[in-house]
């Protein structure tokens, strides 16, 4: 019997029958120990999963516990819509449709050529060899001319330099890679070297012809009309002309106050 257990207040325990001490289970029952160990081990699993999720990428969709209005019944650009056979929510324009503000009122600005009837009766494009009035006006004013040419340079370096090179000579990174693949005999290479934009042939092309090359592509070069707006196409044409001029310019053409750049 434990010490002090004989005091009167413990009579209810001691009672007439006395206490039988249970000596069999002094230690934790094994089941409690097992549960504790298993629990302690299992508790690491969520931690490990979290760790994995934080330091890895996953192809499983994100988990959003509260969906709320995350996905509303509306279409955002380039969403899919199973109502249509091609699953496109954004419908391609019906042939002949003209968006507001995009009516072709000026052949020169929008196409770079006008159609003339040739002697045999067919319609032939005749390319303009000057800039449209609105663009020419910008080029005539030194303040806006610089902005236009810088815009042209920026767009050229984004869309054209990959193939034609930043200097326009046709040695861009895509050409170098494609040329290498062709020489290594890789299957499926029909690479044609991009033209040198500063050679004599390209110098002789009318402005409208270069513009039309961007709009509709030429021979092995694709169209860039979907990526570049008409005003930017003209800015690129102006920049191509600048490259052509710069790469044949004599040192004397550099203004006196900029001469030291050449040294």
């Amino acid at each position, binding site marked *: 019997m434990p010490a002090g257990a004989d005091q009167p207040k413990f009579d209810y325990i001691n009672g007439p*029958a006395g206490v039988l001490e249970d000596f069999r*289970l002094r230690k934790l*029952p094994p089941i409690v120990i097992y549960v504790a160990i298993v629990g302690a081990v299992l508790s690491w699993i969520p931690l490990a999963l979290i760790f994995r*999720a934080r330091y890895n990428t996953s192809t499983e969709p994100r988990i959003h516990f509260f969906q709320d209005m995350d996905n509303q019944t509306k279409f955002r650009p380039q969403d899919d819509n199973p109502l249509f056979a091609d699953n496109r929510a954004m419908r391609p324009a019906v042939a002949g449709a003209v968006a507001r503000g995009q009516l072709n009122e000026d052949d020169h600005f929008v196409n770079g050529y006008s159609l003339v009837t040739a002697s045999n009766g067919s319609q032939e494009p005749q390319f303009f060899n000057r800039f449209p009035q609105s663009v020419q006006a910008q080029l005539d004013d030194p303040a806006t001319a610089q902005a236009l040419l810088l815009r042209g340079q*920026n767009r050229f370096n*984004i869309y054209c330099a*990959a193939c034609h090179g930043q200097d326009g000579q046709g040695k861009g990174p895509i050409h170098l890679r494609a040329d290498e693949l062709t020489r290594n005999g890789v299957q*499926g*290479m029909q690479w044609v070297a991009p033209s040198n934009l500063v050679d004599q042939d390209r110098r002789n092309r009318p402005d409208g012809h270069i513009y039309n090359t961007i709009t509709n592509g030429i021979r092995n070069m694709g*169209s860039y009309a979907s990526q570049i707006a008409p005003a930017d196409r003209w800015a690129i044409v102006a920049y191509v002309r600048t490259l052509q001029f710069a790469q044949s310019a004599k040192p004397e053409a550099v203004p006196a106050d900029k001469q030291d750049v050449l040294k």
Partner: protein
Amino acid sequence: MNASKRKRFLFPRWVNFALPVLIVAVLGGGLYAPTLVTFGFSSSTIDVGYAPIQPVAYSHALHAGELGIDCRYCHSSVENAGFAAIPTTQVCMGCHTSVRNVSEKLKPVQESWETGKPIEWVKVHDLPDYAFFNHSAHVNSGVGCVSCHGRVDTMEVVYQAERLSMSWCIDCHRNPEKHLRPRDQVTNMQYKPEAKEGESELAAQLRVGKEIKEKYKIHDEAYMTSCSTCHR
């Protein structure tokens, strides 16, 4: 002593040992549960790193990294529109009519080109529809792609690199200086402001960021953090 008289109120002795175990369990659990909730429910765990399987094994590491094609060559609407357009098949075919045009990997692109059916890319970054986001507002204010999309030019497969949670948006809207750069550098994935002598990288960024914030007339904090800027 017979069994019927032993119905006494008495804990078994092992309970003495259970008490410390219980204390450890309660303290441990008290730490464990909040840890689990904080990290488990955080957007860094459940949102970041999502990289769905795409219909074409297209690699940004090759095209944007190695070949150095500018982001805007393909995502051409990013400067003019809220939405950064995923390129059409025609954009791919500008090169792939003559580059590797019999490749297995490009089969779906060829098919799409012939049938006119678009390639169904899986959207990686996806804000809830009630949040308003606009690319042109950011790109034209000198926030680079890399601030929100990570080093896309090193990714074989695009994954979500940032949390895109509301707190993440607001962190930058409070202190945009840390992320601003000149407009012509927004697609440069490795842009670092030029540090003056003895200036740390962070100090240089903050200096340049402040100048640009002035120059581009970025709105003040009150406007940038007002609910109606992003929930309209």
